[in-house]
């Protein structure tokens, strides 16, 4: 009898521990995910009326110039951040990995922008780029160079925003690279040194191959982050302008949903965005895990 009771308790217990988490995830991730698919095939205004319209939203989307320009901006943003930020993070990690005090101090300094909130960093850079009293134009003026528009110049706005985002985040990935570097046995470097390998060769033939999994991880995470976690800088720095040049997809979705009130259309954009990033990530993993990439 007692044995049976214990057995019955045994069966129900794991679900009790799991219950709250599953309820939250079901209600706030899985149910919204399913709702998003449904909404994307509906006409749905923010006031609440929902009626199915088939693939109308997708037809509108794929024939909208605004969408393509937003997608282009997002892809440019992603590619530049993935390449430039990953390279910078790796180079800096290689240079600051020693245990010396100066290097520890530098690591902490580089990390400060990571802990600042995105709102704070976005405002800081918005004003650094300010054409009247911003520091950057001030420096250019001081050097006798022409003042630039930066965020107000359509051809510079996206690049200016990218610079600010890399400034904020590179040290986060530097830390991940540092952890990866610690895993590489020092004997390998010593052996290479005895064989007369120069520093560049050591990096090329020991560090990079052994760091492959870490690099892959950083590239996949950065791809996702630079594509998706960019709402705040657009909201604070440019509002999507000038001339839509910084209207990144996440902001495009939000604008269509909450400024223009078209939830169906916004859901369709989100669907396309989700599929796009999923495919990009899968391709990256496929390439990264191939035996001799």
């Amino acid at each position: 009898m007692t044995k049976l009771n214990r057995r019955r308790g045994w069966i129900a217990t794991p679900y009790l521990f799991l219950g709250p988490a599953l309820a939250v995830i079901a209600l706030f991730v899985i149910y919204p995910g399913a709702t998003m698919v449904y909404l994307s095939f509906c006409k749905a205004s923010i006031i609440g009326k929902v009626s199915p319209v088939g693939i109308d939203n997708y037809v509108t989307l794929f024939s909208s110039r605004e969408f393509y320009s937003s997608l282009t901006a997002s892809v440019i943003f992603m590619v530049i951040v993935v390449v430039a930020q990953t390279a910078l993070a790796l180079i800096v990690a290689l240079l600051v990995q020693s245990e010396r005090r100066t290097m520890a101090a530098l690591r902490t300094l580089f990390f400060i922008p990571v802990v600042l909130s995105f709102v704070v960093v976005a405002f800081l850079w918005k004003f650094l780029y300010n054409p009247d009293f911003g520091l950057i134009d001030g420096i250019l003026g001081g050097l006798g160079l022409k003042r630039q528009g930066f965020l107000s110049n359509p051809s510079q706005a996206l690049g200016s925003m990218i610079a600010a985002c890399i400034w904020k985040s590179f040290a986060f990935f530097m830390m991940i690279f540092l952890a990866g570097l610690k895993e590489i046995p020092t004997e390998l470097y010593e052996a290479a040194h005895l064989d007369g390998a120069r520093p560049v060769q050591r990096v090329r033939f020991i560090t990079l191959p052994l760091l492959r999994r870490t690099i892959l991880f950083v590239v996949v995470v950065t791809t996702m982050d630079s594509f998706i976690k960019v709402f705040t800088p657009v909201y604070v720095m440019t509002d999507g302008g000038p001339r839509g040049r910084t209207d990144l997809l996440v902001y495009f979705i939000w604008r269509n949903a909450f400024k223009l009130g078209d939830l169906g259309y916004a859901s369709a954009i989100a669907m396309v965005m989700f599929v796009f990033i999923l495919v990009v990530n899968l391709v990256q993993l496929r390439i990264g895990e191939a035996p001799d990439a």
Partner: protein
Amino acid sequence: MRNRSSRVSLAHGAFLALLAILVLVPLLWGLSLAFRTNEEIVRMTGVSLHSFLPERVTLANFERLFKAVNMLRVFGVTLLVCLSVTFLSLLVNSAAAFAFARFTFAGRNIIFAIVVATMILPIEILIVPLYRIVKELGFMNRLAALILPFCATGFGIFFMRQFMAGIPRDLDEAAEIDGCNKLVVFSRIIVPLCRTALVTLGLIVFLQQWDNFLIPVTFISKKSLMLLQVAITDIYSHMFFTDTALLFAGIFVSAVPVIVIFVFLQRYYVLGITSTGIKG
């Protein structure tokens, strides 16, 4: 050979020095704005030592800030939300992780796979349907909208499970033989042993919430429930003229606590980052 390596290290040093300047200079410049008057700020058109040191240090901006915005309430609400999410998510995620790490039950692997897979559905993508659900639940302009969606995450469960899987089972088996039930095993044995992981995850969650902007700006319009990050943008959007000094006083007040937290808990934070990196 010697010459070459000293030239190389000189280049390294120069590169790092340049980067340190690029990180430090914007911070110092922004910091100085909080202590200047607006009249002084608009005169800063060139570069000089005064680009970084105010000509006359003033604290008036902070006085104006605390008059214009109820900073005490903003901080209070923000801390309430951040701490509630941190506490609840640690509890809910580690309970779920315990189930995955210490039980065999029907559907365990498939449920775990689904939970981990939800990591590819970030809030930015789900914001539209989430808005409808929050509205249906009557959570608009309620703190529940800021807290509940974050109480369980695929990442948190995965992270805690990985850590618990590394704890030897001997301890919980011994306790069970002594007649402890699973709740006692969880709360008295597993949770204390997970202290490092809990501090790490707690710090990650807290800073994420501190930084959270999309959710509060979308779901909360009531002034009395405004979170810190939204309050900063609110200072900016309600300016009749560009009151840069006031804005940067707000930025200063909001940024200092996180920097202080980071300096004290750096070890855990870095540990959290690196363990996610390796296990990814």
